[in-house]
């Protein structure tokens, strides 16, 4: 395999019962890259992220992180990953602070001085941080989970619909911080329906439909290969889906 690949998926298949949700998924992601998985509901984006993060096992095919094979049991590789799910269920009986303390202790990574206070103020969680998570709104839970990832600064960040429930100020901060993490050399995979977000952040885009990657590349590469002269991601997406 390519030794430079930070993350590599080769021929990944996954079935749930009789339904094949992933069919031969192949892509690579490098550091200093934001890789966007774009696709409709049920296309296989969440399953792909779950397999990369070691939550699910692929039926066929392999996932390599830093050249090592990823699996549900590979706890060592999980240390390099920060995963944000599409449905942020967390321990409702813990307070926000207790949850963050729990996460950084599990990952054994003390945050840089001042970063905790910085994220708290950016996400406006100062008042809620001592309250039980069961009193949080969906957006607040999302912010807390984003904080738990940002505080650790993992090398591979997997974000599944990260903007769900976030307020405009938090969205703005999120975008800036993701770009900062990219410039720090992190590899980021972002799954979204939002074309605007993909357009603003993506280094490369993969359009996934019905468990298959239809097309993958930079925005320019996609518009060239699909003959979309407007250059708009919306037109690229629609054309890719129509051709499928």
């Amino acid at each position, binding site marked *: 395999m390519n030794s430079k690949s930070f993350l590599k998926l080769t021929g990944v298949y996954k079935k749930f*019962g009789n339904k094949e949700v992933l069919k031969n998924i192949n892509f690579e992601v490098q550091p200093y890259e934001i890789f966007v998985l774009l696709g409709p509901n049920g296309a296989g984006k969440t399953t792909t992220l*779950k397999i990369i*993060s*070691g*939550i699910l*096992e692929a039926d066929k095919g392999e996932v390599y992180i830093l050249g090592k094979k990823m699996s*549900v*049991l590979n*706890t*060592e*590789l*999980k*240390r390099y*990953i920060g*995963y944000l*799910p599409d*449905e942020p*269920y*967390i*321990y409702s*009986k*813990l307070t926000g*602070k*207790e949850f*963050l*303390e*729990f996460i*950084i*202790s*599990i*990952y*054994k*990574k*003390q*945050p840089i001085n001042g970063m*905790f*206070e910085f994220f708290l103020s950016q996400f406006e969680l*100062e*008042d*809620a*941080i*001592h*309250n*039980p998570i069961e*009193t949080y709104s969906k957006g607040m839970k999302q912010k807390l989970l984003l904080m738990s990832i940002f505080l650790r600064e993992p090398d591979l960040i997997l974000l599944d619909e990260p903007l769900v429930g976030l307020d405009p100020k938090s969205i703005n901060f999120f975008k800036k911080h993701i770009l900062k993490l990219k410039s720090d050399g992190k590899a980021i995979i972002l799954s979204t329906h939002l074309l605007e977000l993909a357009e603003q952040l993506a280094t490369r885009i993969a359009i996934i439909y019905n468990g298959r990657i239809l097309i993958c590349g930079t925005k320019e590469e996609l518009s060239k290969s699909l003959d979309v002269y407007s250059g708009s991601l919306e037109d690229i997406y629609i054309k890719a889906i129509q051709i499928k």
Partner: protein
Amino acid sequence: MIDFLFILNLNIRIFLNSFKFATKTERIREFFLGFIGFVFFLSSYIISYQIVVYISNLPVIGSLFTVRILALGFLSSFLMLFFSSLIIPFSTMFEAEDLNLLFSLPLRYSSIYLNKVFLSLIRSSWMILVILVPFVVAFGVVKNFDILGYIVIIISILLKSLISSSLGIATSILLSYLFPSKKIKNVVLVLLIIFSAVVYSLFRFSQPEKLLSPQNFHEIFDYLDFLSKPVAKVLPSWWVAEIFRGLMVNDRNIVIINLIKLLLTVSFIFVILFTIFKKIFYKCVFFLMSEGKKSKLYKAPIINLKSTYFVVILKEIKTLLREPVQWIQFVIVVALSLVYLFNISRIPLEFKYVKITVSFLNLGGIMFILTAIVLRFVFVQPSLEYKTYWLIKSYPVSMEKLFFLKFLVYLPIVLLPGLVLCIVSNLVIGVERIIFVFSIAVVLFSCFVLTIAGFSLGLLFPKKEFKDIPQIETSFGGLMFVILSLCYIILSLSSIAEPARRYILNLKISHLDLLFYFFIFFMINFIYAFAPVYYAKKKFIEEY
């Protein structure tokens, strides 16, 4: 009314779809549960039939005793229904997931309220009504009731159930109005559990068995007088018992008077429920929907890196202690244990072989109590955490280490009552030292095995969606755990029964035989502990 039927149609469709779109595994589960239900029904009918025949044939006191037993049975079901109806409305009325949707639709408020009351009535009473069926049928068969008799019985029991359920629902609406907070459900649940535990213990300690034997009364007339007195005369349960008596002695007046009493009471409660309480419910729901959250004064927190062992154990303990419905169940465990020890102390233990036999059977009793504790505290854990398993699976901590830490937290909860029960009961029985040590060893083993098996089976059969913890305990997985644990208790005790028998009868046993029996005992324990672990691990890797 059209709105009500519209929502009802939706409820029925949701209920039917759960069967229609069930997976193969779910269908097998349903079939299995149906089979268990059928066996329960049949055995309840047979036992009820025998009891009714026996009681009816008692000389002199037969008919009086029958009515008294009926009255006690109906009083218990009346109270059980009232208490269950006190809790059910919190999930079906105040915290119903579809409440926001229903209020956003152009539906009449009274229809929504009627629907919610109707669902609460059904959810709180169906199980108790079903349990009563085999008993009522057995009673009818023994007493030769005709079709009209059965119809009267069904109507009277339904009316009694409507009264107790409606009273329970009205009380919970009133409580939510007087103490408008989402925490009121936990408060009510905690108070109910404490109340039930206290009542149960007091009932047992009052030695009710004395009341059923005439020799405890100075005169036989005192006894007959006691039997003929009504049980809670003002409650509808007594009216239903009177209807049964009326059918037995063919006195239509008794039947009609008591049926009218039931009908009038139901009508009165329904009028109150659909006038005053309808308005109160409206206020409660909108208050609870807009309940504010108190925020503490902001203080810059400091977060520290701690050891993995420490944070995982701390998280488990905090989660357990912050779930009042969980830890309050300790009260039930204490009440059960006290009653159990009291029962042991009432057994006449004059002879050595009786002591050893009771001590041996006591092991089965303790293991059964341990099964109930594991079901309440350990088995439910995987379901409670089911939705956060994405987090656990993404941790850089091995699954074995994580589950071992959980085991360390939950083992003392099982171990402590197990050892206390074993030591105290053996002291009460007054067994020899060797039996004492042997009992402790067996209980220690079973604590380890049941805790591991309980957690693993909880992982294998998680209840993914639930409204409260008892729903997890009574799920298919919970039933499987109880059945498998009963098999484990019977098998492991059977494996050491022969050495115990020889010891009681002072017969010799060779070392080789002893080794063989204990090998079987260890194997049974090993299989029950580790076979579920193997499959649970497999499922945890493949699913979630």
